C-alpha cells in the first residue's frame, strides 16, 4: 500500500493497516505501555491484561480507527485511560485495608538492610495511596516512568499547567505523610540507595 502525501488529504491516518503492522506496533510499544499501566494500577498482571485488552479492542475496530496524533501518543493516552478506569473499579471492590502491606508478614530471616528497604517502600506506597487518583498517576508517571510534563499532559488529556499543579500537590501531601519518618528516610537513602539526584 502506497500512502501518497497529499496537501489536500484530511488529517488522520489508519492506526492499524494490516496484521503484520499490527504485530509490529504491538511489539514496539507493549513493554513501555505495560510499565505505564503498572505505575498506575500497581499490579503487573493486571497491567499486562489492560494493555492486551486494549490492543485486542483496537484490532476489532481497526477499519474505522483513524488517528491524527503519532501512534505512540494515541496508545499512551488509551493505556492511561484504561488503567485509571481499572483502578477505579478496583477501589470500589477492594477495601483499602486489604491493599496495605502489613509489617507482620516480614520474614524473620531478612537482614536489617532488607527490612529497612521494605519499610521504606511500604511507607512510600502508603503515602502515594493517600494521593487522589489523578494526582498519583501524574506523580508516578513523572517520577518512575520519567515522562515529561508534556507527555503526561498528552497521555492524560490535561493541560501542562494542571500537571504542574498536580506535581506540587503530590509533593506537598507526600511530605505531610512522611514527615514523621523523614529523619529515618534520609539516613536510609544515604546508606542504601544510589543518589542520582543532585541536591544543590
Amino acid at each position, binding site marked *: *500500500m*502506497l*500512502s*501518497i*502525501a*497529499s496537501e*489536500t*488529504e484530511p488529517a488522520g491516518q489508519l492506526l492499524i*493497516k*494490516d*496484521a*503484520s*503492522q499490527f504485530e*509490529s506496533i*504491538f*511489539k*514496539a510499544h*507493549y*513493554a513501555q505501555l*505495560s*510499565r505505564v499501566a*503498572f505505575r498506575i494500577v500497581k499490579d*503487573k498482571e493486571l*497491567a*499486562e491484561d489492560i*494493555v492486551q485488552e486494549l*490492543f*485486542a479492542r483496537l484490532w476489532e475496530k481497526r477499519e474505522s480507527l483513524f488517528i491524527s496524533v*503519532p501512534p505512540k501518543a494515541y496508545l499512551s493516552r488509551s493505556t492511561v485511560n484504561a488503567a485509571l478506569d481499572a483502578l477505579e473499579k478496583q477501589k470500589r471492590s477492594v477495601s483499602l485495608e486489604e491493599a496495605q502491606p502489613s509489617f507482620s508478614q516480614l520474614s524473620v530471616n531478612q537482614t536489617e538492610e532488607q527490612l529497612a528497604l521494605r519499610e*521504606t*517502600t511500604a*511507607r512510600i506506597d502508603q503515602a*502515594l495511596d493517600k494521593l487522589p487518583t489523578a494526582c498519583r498517576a501524574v*506523580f508516578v508517571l513523572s*517520577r*518512575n516512568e520519567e515522562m*515529561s*510534563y*508534556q*507527555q503526561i499532559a498528552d497521555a492524560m488529556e490535561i493541560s501542562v499547567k494542571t500537571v*504542574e499543579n498536580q*506535581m*506540587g500537590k*503530590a*509533593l*506537598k501531601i*507526600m*511530605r505531610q505523610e*512522611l*514527615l514523621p519518618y*523523614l529523619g529515618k*528516610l*534520609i539516613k536510609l*537513602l544515604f546508606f542504601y*540507595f544510589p*543518589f*542520582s*539526584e543532585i*541536591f*544543590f
Partner: protein
Amino acid sequence: MEAFNQEQDELIAKHLSGESTAEEEQRLREWLKEKPEHAEYLQQLTTVWNSAASSDQFQPNVEAAWEKVKQKTGLTTDAPVKVIPFLSARNLLRIAAVLVPLLILTFAIKSLWPGESKRKVYSATLHKREFLLPDSSLITLNKNSILTLADDFNEDNREVFLNGEAFFEVRKDKIRPFLVQGHHSRTQVLGTSFNVKSRPQKMADEVEVVTGRVSFAANSDDTPEKVVLLPGDKANALKNGTVRKAKTIDPNFMAWRREQLVFKNTPLPEVAQALENYYQQPITLSTAALQNCRFTGTFTKPELKEVLKVLSAATGLTYQRNKNAYLLSGKGCTP
C-alpha cells in the same frame, strides 16, 4: 514552620523532575537564599522525591503477550490479511488531486504496478512517508530519502539500498534476512525495528535499534568489523571501515518520526545538534561561551524559526542566517 505555598511546591517539583527552565532555577536559588527554613524544606521534598524511586524492574514477556493477543483476536500468521484495495476509484481520484512532483509520482506508480518495472523504488522528498514493502515490512522514510529494493527482493534474502534516513519495522522471516545496504555500512536483521542514516556527504552511517537484534558491519573489502546491536544500542560505520558502538540516551533520536523535540536541561551544543538532525540544516555555535547554556522545553511539530526564538529568549542568544545555515552567538550563561 512557615506555611509554604502551592507555587513553591510546583517550582520545586519542576526542579526535581528536571522540567524547570533556567529562569525558574534562578528563582529557586533566590528563594533558597531568603531563609534557612527554605533549604530545609527543599531537602525534605528532595528526600520524598528520592525515596519514591521504584526499584521494580518490570520487563514483561512481549512474545508471550503477543501470543495471548493473537488468541484474543483470532489472529494467526496464516489468517488472511485485511487488505485495503489501492486501486479503488476513490484512491485514483486522490492521486489526481495530489500536488506531488509528477516525476516522483510516475516513478512510484510505475514501481508498484504489477508486471511492469521489476525494480522497486520508494522515495520521500518534502515530507516523511510510510511504505509497506512486498514482504510486509513497514518503513518510514525521512524527507530527502530514497530506498531501492534489490531485483531479487524476497527470494533468498531481502536486500534494500538506502540513501537518506529511514526507520524500519521488519517482518520476521528467519529464512530471508533483511539487509540494508548503506554508503558505508550493511545492517542485517531477521525481524525487528531500527533506524538507519546513510547519506553520501556524511563520513559515517548510523544505526539505532528499537527492538530485536541487528547485525551491523562496515562496507569493507577485507573482513568487515561486525557488531550485534540490541535495543537501545547505536553504532556508526565510518568510511574507513571502522565500527563504533554506543548506547542511545538521546531523547530526540527519531524526533523526525515523532515530530517532537524534547530537551531536559540539555546543553546547548546538543540542542544545536538535535536541531541540525531534525531540520537537516547546519546549525553552529559561534561562541564558546554558549556551550555552558542549558535548555529545557518540548516542541511539537515546530518551525525552526519558532524554536530559535524560544532559545533566544531563554539563553539570550542571537542568530544569523546564511542561506540554509544558522549561526548562533551570544554571551553565554552562568554555569
